[in-house]
C-alpha cells in the first residue's frame, strides 16, 4: 500500500497532496514559500533579526522554494555587511499523497504513497564575539 508499485491511473484516482510535516514553529523560524512576495519574506527576516531581537533565525525551504530560501539568506548576509553568518543544512522530507479511488463500485481502498523532496534549513546568525 505504501510502496508505489502500482502506477497511478489519473482516471481512477484523484490525487490529493497532504501538507508537509512541520516541526513546531518557534518565533524565529521562517518557512519560505513561493506564493508570498519575495521582498515581503526578506523584510520579515530582517525584522526578526533587527527589530525582533533574535540572534539567529532559521530559514526553511522545501522543493521549489529552496532557491528562494538560499536567496533570502544570501541577501540577508549581503545587506548586513558581513555581520551575519550562514550555516546550511539539507534534509529530505517525506511527503504524503492521498489517492482517492474514483471507481464506481466503491470497493477500492484509498491509497497513500510517499515521495521524498529535498529541503534546506539555513541558520542565519550573528557569530558570538569572543
Amino acid at each position, binding site marked *: *500500500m505504501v510502496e508505489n508499485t502500482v502506477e497511478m491511473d489519473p482516471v481512477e484516482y484523484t490525487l490529493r497532496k497532504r501538507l508537509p510535516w512541520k516541526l513546531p514553529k518557534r518565533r524565529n523560524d521562517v518557512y519560505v514559500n513561493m506564493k508570498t512576495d519575495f521582498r515581503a519574506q526578506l523584510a520579515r527576516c530582517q525584522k526578526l533579526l533587527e527589530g525582533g531581537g533574535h540572534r539567529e533565525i532559521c530559514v526553511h525551504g522545501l522543493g521549489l522554494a529552496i532557491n528562494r530560501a538560499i536567496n533570502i539568506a544570501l541577501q540577508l548576509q549581503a545587506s548586513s555587511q558581513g555581520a551575519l553568518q550562514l550555516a546550511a543544512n539539507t534534509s529530505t522530507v517525506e511527503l504524503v499523497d492521498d489517492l482517492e479511488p474514483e471507481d464506481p463500485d466503491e470497493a477500492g481502498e484509498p491509497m497513500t504513497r510517499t515521495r521524498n523532496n529535498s529541503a534546506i534549513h539555513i541558520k542565519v546568525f550573528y557569530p558570538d564575539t569572543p
Partner: protein
Amino acid sequence: MSSAKVKMREKKMRNQPASVQYPASPLSMESSAQNGQDAAVTGGGGGPSYMPPKEGSKPPQQQRGWVRGHKKGGGGYAKEMPKYISAGAFARARAAEVSAMLKAITKTTSSCHVFGALPKHMRRRAMSHNTKRLPRRLRDAAYRMREKSLQAKKKEQAKSKSRKARRRHGNLLLEFNRRQRKNVWLETHIWHAKRFHMVKKWGYCLGDRPTYKCYRSCYRAMSTHCLLQDLSYYCCIELQGEEDKLLASLSQLTSKETGPTFAAALCVSGRRQGSVVVYRAGHYPSQPLGPVTFLWRVRTQGSTHRQLWIWAHPTIKQDLVSELQTVCQCCEAVVTPAPTSEQELVPEKTHEAMQISRTKRKRRSKDDQGPPAKKILGDGTRSPTTPVSWKSSSTGIVINDLTMEVVCYRLIGPQSHSVLAETLEAATDCDEINKTQPSCFWWPEHCKDEGKMSLHQQQADVFRTLKGIYSTGELPSGTVLGLTVDDPRLTLPTKKVKALPCVKRAQEVDEEKRRELMLRGVPERYCQSFLWERSVRDNVTENKISEQELNRMRSEVLVPGSRLSPTPLQGRVPILLVHHPGKQVGHEMSSWGAGWDLLLPKGWGMAFWVPLVYRGVRIGGLNMSLKHSQNKGTPHFPDDYPDCPAGVRFQAEQEAELLDKFRRRPPAKRTNYVKLGCLAPFRCPWQQLAEEWELIMKEREERKGGSQTQTTTAADTVTEEMTLYPDITVTKPQSHFNVLRNRKSLKLLSGWCRPTTSKGQRPCRVRGVTTLDSAAVTSFLTEHRMSLVWVRMLLLSKGKPELHAMVCVPVTEDIKQLSKDTDSCGPQELPHRNHFKSKLKHSKKGSKKAAASSLFSDKSERKGVGNPSASEPQLTTSPADRKSFHQSSEDPIFGLWPDPLPSVTSHCSRVTLGWVTQGDFSLSAGCGEALGFVSVAGLLNMLLSQPMEHRGIVLLRNPTSLYYRFAKINIDV
C-alpha cells in the same frame, strides 16, 4: 392594524356619540345594487375592526359615502334623499345627537390626566407626584386618579416575584424552560447569549456573530490557531440494522455519479466520516434534499448488525426522516418509555415527595436540577410528543432520532488538535477497590473487562501520538478516533492560556508511530467508542457531577489549586473525535480550515466548552461557518443549494429580509436598481435563467442548421438574438433546473474552463479528456440542458464581489482590452432608463386620496393578483410568505423591477450567465473571490467562443454598480 391599535381606538371612541342617524326607510336599503354594495362595505365592519372589503370594490368608492362618527351598530347611511321628513322624529334624532355630544365633552377619557385640562402655562413639573401643585379645583380628581393608579401598580407587583425569588435556581430553570419552548437552546446558550447576537433559526436559538469585533481575528484563528463552534443544532439520525439491508435501502437516496456514497468501502469500515448529497428516493438528479455527513460504527466481530449516524441540517431533517422511513419501510413508531423526558414534563415541585424533610428535599432538587433536569428534551425540529424511533418489521431496520442527544463541537484550524490534546486527557484507570465492587457508573464496570481496557490503552496511545503532529491538515481527512477521557473540568487552568504545539513534546513522540498514523490513519478498531451505546450515554449524562459539587470537592483538597487526586468515578466520558477535511478543491491553500469535530454525550456541553475556551480558541457563530465554507470554496447549506427545498425557503426568506431592509430606507435614498440595470437584486431567478439559456441554445441550433455559417462569436450572436426577440416569454411547462453534481461531467467542465496554453498554468493532463469543440458541447448539453454549476471566481485585478452580483459574458472587445492591458478595470454598463418613473407618478397621483383606505385593502388585492412568475420554482415557496413581499405590477416600488421580470439574460449590454451567492474579499486568496452558480449551457457557449488563452474569463458586476470586473472562472472537483 395591530390589536393594540384597535384597542386604543376603541378606548378613545368609547365616549363618542354612537352614530345617531336618521332612520331610513327599509326600502332604500335594498333600493339599488350599487347602494346595497356600498352599505355592505361601510357597514360590514360592524365595529371598529377594519375588515378588508370582500368584494373588489375600489378604494375611492368607499370614501364616497358621507361617513361620520363611528360606524357602530352596523347600518350605513341611506344613500337616497328621503322624500319627506317627519318633524318629531327628526327633532328627536337631533336631540339625541346633541345630548351625546354634550356627554362626550363633559367626560374626560381615561387616557388623559386631569392636568390635561390645564392650559400649558399652568402646568408644573411633577404635578402627578405632588397634587398640591395643581389648582385646588382639580386636586380632588387628581388625588382620586393617583389612588387608582397606585392600586393598579400594586396589583401588578403582586404578579411578579422579587428578584431574589426569580433568580432562585428552580424558578430560573422554569423560566428558562418557558423561554425555550418555541426555540430550543443549545447547552452553551447562556454562554453564547452573553457574548453573541442571537438569532432564532430553524427552531433553535443560535449565536450569529459575537458582539465584539472579530472578523479578522476569527479568520486568523482559522488559518493559524483554532476556532470553536457549537454545532449541536445539527440533527443526528441513527440507523440500525443489517449492513446489506441498510446499504440497499440507502442506495436509493444517493447516486454513485456524485462521488462516494454511503457504501464507500472506507466509510463502511467505520474509519472515515463520509459526506454525500441526498436525493429523494430514486429521483436523482432532480429533487435533492441536501448534504449530510455520515459515520458508520465499526463492525463488531462476527455480527452484521451495524449502526449508522447521519448528521443533517435541521431544515432538511423532516424530509430526510420521512424519506428514510420510506426507503427502509420503517413506519411503526416505537413508543419508548423515555424515562428522562417524562420526568421532566412533570413540574419538579409536584413530584417532590412531601414526606421528605426540608434539607433532603433541597438535595434532591439539586440533583434533579443538574443538567438532566434542564430541559434537554425535544428539539426545535419536532414537538416533544412525536415518536423518536421507528422500526420496520420487514427489514428489521430501526431509525432513531438522536437530535440533541449528542453534542457536537467543531474545531477549525491547524492547531485544533493541540487544543484537544491539552484539554482532554485519556481516562485514568480506577483503583482495585472500585474494580471489585459493583458500581452504578459505567467506567468501573468497563475496567473489569481486560479487552476493553487494552483497547482504551491503545486509543490513549494514538491520542498521545497526535500531540507530535504540527498541523491538523497533515492527517488523513475524515479520520475517526474513539476515546474515553477524564472530566476536563478537573484540569482547567486557572488562567486562559493559548495552546501551542510544544517542541519538546513533539520529540517525545515515537517517530515510527507517528509516521504510521500519518500514512494509514487510525486503525479500524480504535474507532470504537462507547458513545455509540445509548445506555452508556445515558449513564454518563445522569451521573455528571454538578459544578457545585465539583467546586466543593476542590475546596476540600489539601493543597489549594492542585488536581483532585483520585478522579471521581463519574468523571469519565466517552467521546468521538472526527477529523473534518479542509479545503480540498483548487490548488492553493490546500487543507485550509481542517479540524476536528468533537462528539460528546448530552449534558456535558458546558463541561467541555469552558475548558476549550480556556485554551485560547476563538469562538465563531453562524456567520463564521459561512466564511469558513466560503474560504474552502464549498457550497454552504442552505444558502447555496437553490435546488433543495431548504435552499428555496432560504432564498425566499433572504429576499423578504433584503426587501424589507430596502423599503425601510426613504424612497429618495434607495438604490435605483432599474437604472443600474439590475433585475433581481434580492434573489436569483435560477429557473428563468436556465429556461432562457435553453431557449437560446435551441435557437442557435436551429439557425446553425439553416445557414451553417458561424461568423460572429457566440456571445455576440446571443446579444443579437436577444435584441431581435427582446421579450422571450417562456410559457411551456418545463423541467425544473438542477445543479450539476455528476463528478465526471464536472471534471470535464473543469478541464474545459482552464486556459490551455497560458503561462503559469500547466496544460491540463489530457488523457481521456475530450477537447472542447462544438460536438462535445452538444453531447454534453443533451444531458445537462437545464443544469447550473457551482463555480468559484477570482477577480483578476480590483473589485469586491457582493451578494447577487451578476456573472456576465465578456464580448470580444473586452477580451481585447484585457489582453492589451492586464490591469484594466473592465467595461462599464450604461445607465438604464427608468420606464416606470412616469407610470409610478401617475399612479401616485391617482391613489393619494385613497391611500389611507387602500392601506388595508391592497394586501387582499395582492392576494388576488398573485403572479406565479417563471422564476418561481414550484417546489415549495408557501404562497403565504411570498405574496406579501412580491409587489404586484399595480403597486411597484420605486427602483425595483416589478414582476414578472423581462428576460434576465439579455437585460444588460453583457449577457448574464448566473449570479453570485457568496462574495467577499477573500483573505486567503488576497483578492476578491466570488462563489455562485452559472448556467451550464451559457458557460459552454461562452467557452466555445473564447480564445484559448483567455478561456474562462467572465465579468462580474455588483447589483449596486455599473462597473464590470474581470474574473477567472474555476470549477473545482
